[in-house]
C-alpha cells in the first residue's frame, strides 16, 4: 500500500469513527420531551389552601442521610427538631442530581416571587438576573472549606430580619469540600456538621420568633450523597442517599409526636421514609401553593397530606397527577387516556402505557364515586398515589427515549471504521501482504483488544478497568525483560519499568470496589509532606537537567541554562503557590517561608508565566532550532518537545501526582534505551510494533495511576482554570482534557518520540503504522462499548456505569486519538523529520 493510500484509509477510519460515536451519542443520551411554557392551576386547584407563603431553601452539598440522622451525627439541634416533631425527615434517592436543582429554581422563578441567593455560584451562572440579592461562592479551591461557607453564613442573619423576599436560597459547599479532601470520616467532618447545625438553629429560631417568618417552611436538602472516598456521581448507596428535611413549628400538629432521632438505618444509608429527590418539587409547590412545574416527574410526598382538609388533599394529588399525565403524553406519543372502553385493562400482561391509562381511569372513577359519597377519601388518595407512583417509575426508565435508529447507524459506522482500520493495519508499512504473518506479528495487540472488548460487557470490569492494564502491562514488561536477557543484557531496564508500574498503580486508588482504600498519596505522601516535596522537586530537577542540555542549544550554554532555569522556576513557583492555596497543611514547615515569598503574586499570573516560558521554549525549538542542521544528529526536536511537555503536564497535575511525572520520565528513558540500537548498525531491541504496544499500555496505566477511572466522579477539575481569567470555554475545555489525560498524552507523544530511530532514513512509514494501530485499537474497543451500551440500555446501571464509560470512550477516541495522537502528533513528527534531513 502506498503511503498516501494508508493516510487516506486512516483518515476515513477516523472520520467514520468520530461521526459514528457522535451519532450514537445523540440516540443514546436521553431525549426527554420538554414541555415549554409556565405551568398554571386549573380552576379547582386554585382554591386549595396554602399552608406556607415563604421558603428558606438550604442546600448542603453532599449531605448524606447518615450525616444528619445517624448516631454519629453532629446535627444535634436538627435531631432535636426531628424528635420533637417540628421536622419531617426523609432520605431522598438522588439518582439524577442534575435534574432536580434546575427544576426547583425554575419553579421558584416561575412563581414570580422575589428571590435571594447565597452560595454556589452555578445557580447565579445558570440563572443570571433572577435574584434580587445574591453572592456567589466558587468551588474552585476544593480545599477551602471555611471561607466558602462563611461567605454564605454572614448574610443569613440580616436576611432573616428582612421581609421582602419570598424565597431565600442558601447553598453550602464546605461539607462537600471536606469530603473531597479527606473523605466522610475525616476529622473535619464533625466540626463542619456542628457548624451547619448552628446555622439551622439560627434559621429555625428566626422562624419561631420573627412574626413575618411565621408562614415560612424551611427545607434542608443534600443535592447528593458521598461515597467512602468522599466523591460522588456514581451509583453506590452512599452517593444516592441524600438527607432531606422540611422544618416548621407548624408541623408539630401533624407528626404524631415526632420521629426517632438518632435513627437506625433500614438499609445502607437509608433512614426514615425513602422518597425520590424529584418529589421535593411538587411537595414544595403544594406547600407554597405554586403550580407544579410542567416537566416535573416527582410526587407530592404523602406524609404532608394531613395538613390539608379532605377536599384539598384530593385536589393536591389530582393536580400532581394531571401534570404527570401531560409528561406521559409527551413521552409516549401513543398514550391515550382511556374512555369508556376498559376491556384492555383486564388483560394479564399489559404494555406499561396501557397499564398507566387503566390506573388513571380507575382513579377518576373512584373520585367520582367519592364525590357521590360512595367511596371514602382514602380510597381516592390510594388510587391517585398508585397512579403517580407507577407514572414516576415508567418515566424514570423511559426506555422509549432511546433513538434506536441513530444508535444502529452509529454501530454500523463503527463496524465500517473497524473494517477500514483492519485493512490499513494489515496492508500497511512493513506488512508482507500476508494476513497470517501480520496477525502473528501482532498477537499481543490482538489479545489485548479482545480482552478489553470482553470486559466492556461487565459492569464490574468497567468499574475496575485499571486492573486489565496493570495486569497486562506487568506481563508485557516481564516478557520484555526476558527479551532483554536473550539479547545478552541483564534485563535491568525492563525490570525498572516493571517496578515503576507496580509503584504507580498504588499511587492513587481508583475504581469502585476498593474506593477510598489507602494508597500512596493518602496513606503516605500527605502524611510525610517533606518526602512528597522532595519527590516533587526531584521531578522538576530532572526536567531542568534534561532541558539544560537541550533547549535552544544553538545559542550556546548560557542562554540554554537561563531559559531552562526560567521555565522550571516558573513552574515550581506556580505549583507551590497553588498548593498553598489548595492545601496549606500539605506544605512542610521548612518550605513555608519560601512559599510565602510569592504570596503577593496571583495564581493566574504565575500560571501564565510558566506557560509563557514553556511556549517561548517550544517556539524556539520548533522554528529557530529547526533551521540549524545538527551534524551529530543527537538533537531531536521531538525529544526537546517531549521534555517541555512533561513540565507542562506536571503543571496540569495535582501536586501529589507530580512525582508520577518523574516515574513516567524514568520509564521513558528505559524504554528509549530499549528502542535504540546497542551498537551502530544493529537493530533496536524493540520493534516498531512493540514500541507501539508499550506506549498503548503505558498510556492506560498512566491514566489510571493518576487517579483516572470510568466514573465521572474521578474527573479532576482543580487545574482547569490555570492561567485563565474569566471563563473561556475553549481554553477551559482544553485544560480539562489535558489535566485529566496527563498520562495518556505523555505516553502517546512519547510513543512517537520512541519511534524516531526506526524512522531514520525512511519516510513516515513507522509512524503511519503506529497511528493505524492506535486507530484500530480505539475503533474496535469503541464499537464494543457501543454494543454494550446498546445491549444494556434497559440495565439498572445504564446511567451510572455504561453511559459514563461511553463519555470516556468519546473522549479517548475523539480528543485523545483524533485530536491528540493524530493532530498534535503531526507536529512531533514534523520535528523529527527535519532531524534526519
Amino acid at each position, binding site marked *: 500500500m502506498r503511503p498516501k493510500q494508508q493516510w487516506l484509509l486512516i483518515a476515513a477510519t477516523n472520520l467514520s469513527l468520530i461521526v459514528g460515536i457522535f451519532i450514537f451519542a445523540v440516540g443514546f443520551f436521553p431525549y426527554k420531551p420538554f414541555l415549554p411554557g409556565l405551568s398554571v392551576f386549573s380552576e379547582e386547584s386554585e382554591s386549595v389552601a396554602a399552608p406556607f407563603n415563604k421558603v428558606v431553601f438550604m442546600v448542603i452539598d453532599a449531605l448524606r442521610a447518615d450525616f444528619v440522622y445517624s448516631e454519629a451525627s453532629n446535627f444535634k439541634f436538627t435531631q432535636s427538631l426531628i424528635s420533637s416533631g417540628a421536622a419531617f425527615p426523609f432520605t431522598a434517592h438522588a439518582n439524577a442530581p442534575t435534574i432536580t436543582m434546575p427544576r426547583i429554581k425554575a419553579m421558584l422563578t416561575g412563581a414570580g416571587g422575589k428571590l435571594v441567593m447565597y452560595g454556589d455560584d452555578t445557580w447565579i451562572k445558570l440563572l443570571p438576573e433572577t435574584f434580587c440579592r445574591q453572592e456567589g461562592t466558587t468551588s474552585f479551591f476544593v480545599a477551602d472549606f471555611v471561607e466558602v461557607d462563611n461567605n454564605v453564613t454572614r448574610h443569613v442573619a440580616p436576611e432573616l430580619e428582612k421581609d421582602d423576599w419570598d424565597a431565600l436560597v442558601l447553598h453550602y459547599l464546605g461539607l462537600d469540600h471536606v469530603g473531597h479532601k479527606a473523605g466522610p470520616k475525616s476529622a473535619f467532618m464533625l466540626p463542619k456538621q456542628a457548624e451547619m447545625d448552628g446555622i439551622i438553629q439560627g434559621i429555625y429560631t428566626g422562624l419561631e420568633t420573627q412574626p413575618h417568618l411565621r408562614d415560612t417552611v424551611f427545607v434542608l436538602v443534600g443535592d447528593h450523597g458521598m461515597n467512602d472516598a468522599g466523591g460522588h456521581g456514581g451509583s453506590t448507596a452512599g452517593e444516592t442517599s441524600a438527607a432531606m428535611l422540611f422544618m416548621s413549628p407548624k408541623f408539630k400538629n401533624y407528626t404524631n409526636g415526632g420521629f426517632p432521632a438518632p435513627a437506625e438505618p433500614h438499609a445502607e444509608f437509608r433512614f426514615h421514609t425513602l422518597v425520590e429527590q424529584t418529589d421535593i418539587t411538587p411537595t414544595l409547590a403544594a406547600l407554597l401553593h405554586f403550580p407544579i412545574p410542567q416537566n416535573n416527574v416527582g410526587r407530592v410526598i404523602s406524609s404532608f397530606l394531613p395538613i390539608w382538609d379532605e377536599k384539598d388533599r384530593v385536589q393536591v394529588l389530582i393536580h400532581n397527577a394531571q401534570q404527570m399525565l401531560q409528561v406521559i403524553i409527551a413521552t409516549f406519543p401513543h398514550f391515550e387516556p382511556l374512555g369508556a372502553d376498559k376491556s384492555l385493562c383486564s388483560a394479564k400482561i399489559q404494555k406499561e402505557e396501557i397499564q398507566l391509562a387503566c390506573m388513571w381511569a380507575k382513579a377518576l372513577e373512584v373520585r367520582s364515586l367519592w364525590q357521590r359519597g360512595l367511596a371514602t377519601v382514602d380510597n381516592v388518595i390510594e388510587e391517585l398515589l398508585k397512579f403517580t407512583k407507577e407514572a414516576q417509575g415508567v418515566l424514570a426508565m423511559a426506555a422509549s427515549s432511546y433513538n434506536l435508529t441513530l444508535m444502529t447507524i452509529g454501530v454500523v459506522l463503527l463496524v465500517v471504521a473497524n473494517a477500514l482500520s483492519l485493512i490499513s493495519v494489515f496492508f500497511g508499512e512493513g506488512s508482507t501482504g500476508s494476513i497470517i504473518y501480520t496477525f502473528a506479528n501482532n498477537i499481543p495487540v490482538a489479545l489485548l483488544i479482545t480482552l478489553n472488548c470482553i470486559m466492556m460487557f*461487565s*459492569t*464490574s*470490569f468497567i*468499574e*475496575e478497568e485499571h*486492573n486489565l492494564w*496493570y*495486569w497486562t502491562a*506487568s*506481563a508485557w514488561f*516481564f*516478557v520484555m525483560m*526476558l*527479551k532483554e*536477557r*536473550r539479547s545478552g543484557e541483564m*534485563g535491568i531496564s525492563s525490570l525498572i519499568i*516493571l*517496578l515503576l508500574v*507496580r509503584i504507580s*498503580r*498504588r499511587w492513587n486508588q481508583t*475504581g469502585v*470496589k476498593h474506593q477510598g482504600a489507602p494508597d500512596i498519596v493518602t496513606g503516605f505522601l500527605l502524611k510525610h509532606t517533606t518526602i512528597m516535596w522532595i519527590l516533587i522537586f526531584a521531578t522538576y530537577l530532572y526536567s531542568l537537567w534534561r532541558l539544560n542540555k537541550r533547549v535552544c542549544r544553538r545559542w550556546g550554554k548560557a542562554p540554554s541554562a537561563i531559559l531552562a532555569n526560567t521555565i522550571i522556576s516558573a513552574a515550581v513557583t506556580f505549583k507551590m503557590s497553588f498548593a498553598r492555596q489548595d492545601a496549606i497543611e500539605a506544605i512542610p514547615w521548612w518550605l513555608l517561608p519560601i512559599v510565602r515569598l510569592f504570596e503577593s503574586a496571583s495564581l493566574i499570573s504565575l500560571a501564565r508565566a510558566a506557560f509563557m516560558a514553556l511556549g517561548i521554549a517550544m517556539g524556539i525549538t520548533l522554528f529557530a532550532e529547526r533551521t540549524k542542521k545538527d551534524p551529530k544528529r543527537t538533537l531531536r526536536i521531538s525529544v526537546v518537545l517531549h521534555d517541555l511537555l512533561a513540565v507542562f503536564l506536571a503543571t496540569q497535575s495535582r501536586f501529589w501526582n507530580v512525582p508520577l511525572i518523574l516515574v513516567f520520565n524514568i520509564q521513558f528513558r528505559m524504554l528509549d534505551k530499549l528502542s535504540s540500537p546497542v551498537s551502530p548498525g544493529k537493530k533496536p531491541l524493540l520493534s516498531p510494533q512493540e514500541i507501539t504496544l508499550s506506549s498503548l499500555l503505558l498510556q492506560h496505566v498512566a491514566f489510571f495511576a493518576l487517579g483516572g477511572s470510568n466514573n465521572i466522579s474521578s474527573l479532576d477539575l482543580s487545574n482547569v482554570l490555570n492561567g485563565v481569567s474569566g471563563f473561556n470555554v475553549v481554553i477551559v475545555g482544553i485544560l480539562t482534557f489535558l489535566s485529566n489525560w496527563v498520562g495518556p498524552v505523555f505516553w502517546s507523544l512519547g510513543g512517537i518520540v520512541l519511534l524516531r530511530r526506526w524512522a531514520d532514513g525512511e519516510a513516515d512509514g513507522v509512524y503511519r503504522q503506529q497511528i493505524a494501530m492506535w486507530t484500530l485499537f480505539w475503533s474496535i474497543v469503541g464499537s464494543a462499548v457501543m454494543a454494550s451500551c446498546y445491549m444494556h440500555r434497559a440495565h439498572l446501571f445504564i446511567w451510572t456505569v455504561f453511559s459514563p464509560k461511553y463519555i470516556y470512550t468519546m473522549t479517548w477516541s475523539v480528543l485523545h486519538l483524533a485530536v491528540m495522537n493524530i493532530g498534535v502528533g503531526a507536529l512531533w513528527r514534523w520535528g523529527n523529520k527535519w532531524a534526519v534531513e
Partner: protein
Amino acid sequence: MPHRTTSKPNITGLSPTLLTHLHPLVLLTSYFLQFPSLVASPPSTLISSLFPLTAIQITYAVLCLDSTAHSASSTEMKSKPGGLRPKKADSASSGRVADHILPISISLLLTATLFTFLTTLLLFLFGAPFTTHHSHTVLAATHISLLIAFPLIYVHRLDSQKWSEISSFTVPLDEVFAASVGAMIGAWCGAVPIPLDWDEPWQKWPCTILTGAYLGYAVGKFMGMYVVGGKKLVF
C-alpha cells in the same frame, strides 16, 4: 531436554512413565481437597499443605527425574524432543535412597530460601499486596517455588549455563520447564477473578492465583510431554 528415567521399574516397582502422569493428578487432587480450608483460612492451610506438596514433589523428583541429566546432556544425548532418555548404568541408581538425599536437600534448601524470596519479589512486582497479607504472599510464593523451582533445581543442579538459559526462558520446553512456565502463566491468569463483584469468599488473596498456578502446572506439564516438547519459546 529429557530428564526422565527409563520406563524400567524402580523402587516402587511402578514405571516412571505411569508415575509422571499420575504426579499432576495427585497434586491437583491434594490441592482441591484442601481448597475449602484454604479459602477459610489461607495462612494455616498453606503451612499445613506444604508437607504433602513437598512429599509429592520429592517423590516425583526421585522416581521420575534424572538428576544427573545436565552433566551429560550437551555431549551425549541427542534424543528426540521431549522423549525419554535411557539412564546410564552408573548414574545415580534409583534403588539407593542415600544417593538422593544430598540433591534433594540442596534443592529443598534453595527452593525454600532463594527461590521463595525471588517468587515473593515477583508476586510483589505483579501486584501482590505490599503492606498487608505478608504471610499469605510468602506462603503462596513457597508453594509456587516448590512447584516451579524445585524440579528445575533437582534436574539442573547448579549449572550456571543452564540457569542463565532458564532465566531468559531459552531452555527447551520439556515436561519440567513447560510445567514451570505453565504454572507462571496460570498464576498470572489466576488474578483475573479478583476484581469481579461476585463477593465469593474464594476471590480472596491468594486463592485464585494458587489455583491458577496448580492448574497451569498440570496443563504445562502435559503440554511439555505431548505438545510442545523440546521446542523453545519464541518471542
